[in-house]
């Protein structure tokens, strides 16, 4: 049920972005970053996403989850290390407590891949200059995908 809540938050955020777009578009993939040191289980999230997006604007969209490892910085050793979740969190070299997490707490919508009909007409450059695009706080940058 936790993943249900997370998915709701995810869909709400994506909808906000979707509705702020000046042109109709089709969302293909939502890219998510999920840290290993969060309460989110990627498999459950994928399942909840598939279930909850049926019959919505996200129908058929893929959820791509990139997991980030737990990495902590030891201020005594001045080095990063990888705590072993479930077993050991202190620095393996000097035993200092895990105090400064550098990676693993992310729960972030990184980017959205989408497609548009007749997109050549409204090239992304044009979007950059349109007032909607600049006012829209969620769409920070728009770049054609590499693929």
């Amino acid at each position, binding site marked *: 049920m936790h993943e249900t809540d997370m998915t709701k938050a995810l869909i709400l955020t994506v909808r906000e*972005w979707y509705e702020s777009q000046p042109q109709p578009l089709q969302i293909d993939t939502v890219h998510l970053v999920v840290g290993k040191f969060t*309460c989110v289980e990627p498999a459950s999230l994928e399942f909840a996403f598939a279930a909850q997006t049926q019959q919505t604007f996200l129908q058929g969209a893929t959820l791509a989850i990139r997991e980030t490892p737990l990495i902590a910085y030891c201020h005594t050793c001045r080095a990063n290390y990888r705590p072993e979740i479930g077993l050991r969190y202190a620095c393996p070299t000097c035993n200092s407590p895990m*105090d400064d997490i550098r990676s693993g707490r992310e729960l972030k919508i990184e980017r959205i891949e989408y497609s548009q009909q007749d997109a050549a007409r409204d090239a992304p450059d044009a979007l950059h200059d349109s007032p909607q695009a600049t006012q829209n706080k969620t769409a920070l940058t728009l770049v054609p995908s590499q693929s």
Partner: protein
Amino acid sequence: MHQTFDAALGINLLHVNQDGADQNRTQFDQWGIRCLNLMSSPGAGKTALLEQTLAALTPEIKIAVIEGDMTTELDADRLRRYGVPVIAINTGRSCHLDSKMVAGGIHRLAHEHNPAEFDLVLVENVGNLVCPAEFEVGEHAKVALLSITEGEDKPLKYPLMFQEADCLLITKMDLAPHLDFDLEQLVANVRQMNPRADILPVSAKTGAGLEHWFGWVRSHLHQSVNSALAIAP
């Protein structure tokens, strides 16, 4: 013609909850209220601790409780006997309180009472060792409870809540003679991920250690936690 694009967002999934939590905290601050978020697995003794706390600290401290019971008012009824406002939030099937639910509780408190009269709001979160740590509700400090029957390995297995806690109460200490419970090991496990939390062993049943907890609450209200009472790092 069909062209694909890529929009970079970089938005935290929990940003809506976080904004709500910040608003709740601002509201508490305006009323001069401190808010503590009590979290533990089911049955670790949150309500029992609240009962003792209300009995000992009212009327010295003016307290209201926000009770995050899954479906019933059982816990809320237990606490109402102490003559403080207890706002029960029906969390439905959600496994944690979120800032929106607590905002609803704050709204009711303001509607039914003069909120500026209160010093302290104690939030009993839904019994769950994992999720509540991820959802801030507007608290000024997080209080985690771990009962000694759960085992000293739990902080290693479910680290998030222990890592985030400002105060950790080790509860049901009266049961220690009946168990193979290693307090030192537990503290060492918690210290691996949280060098700062005050760790206080207590028993709501016998009252042992509760003075330290009350002291922690008092000093939290005065914003200078006396960590001398706690087990040193």
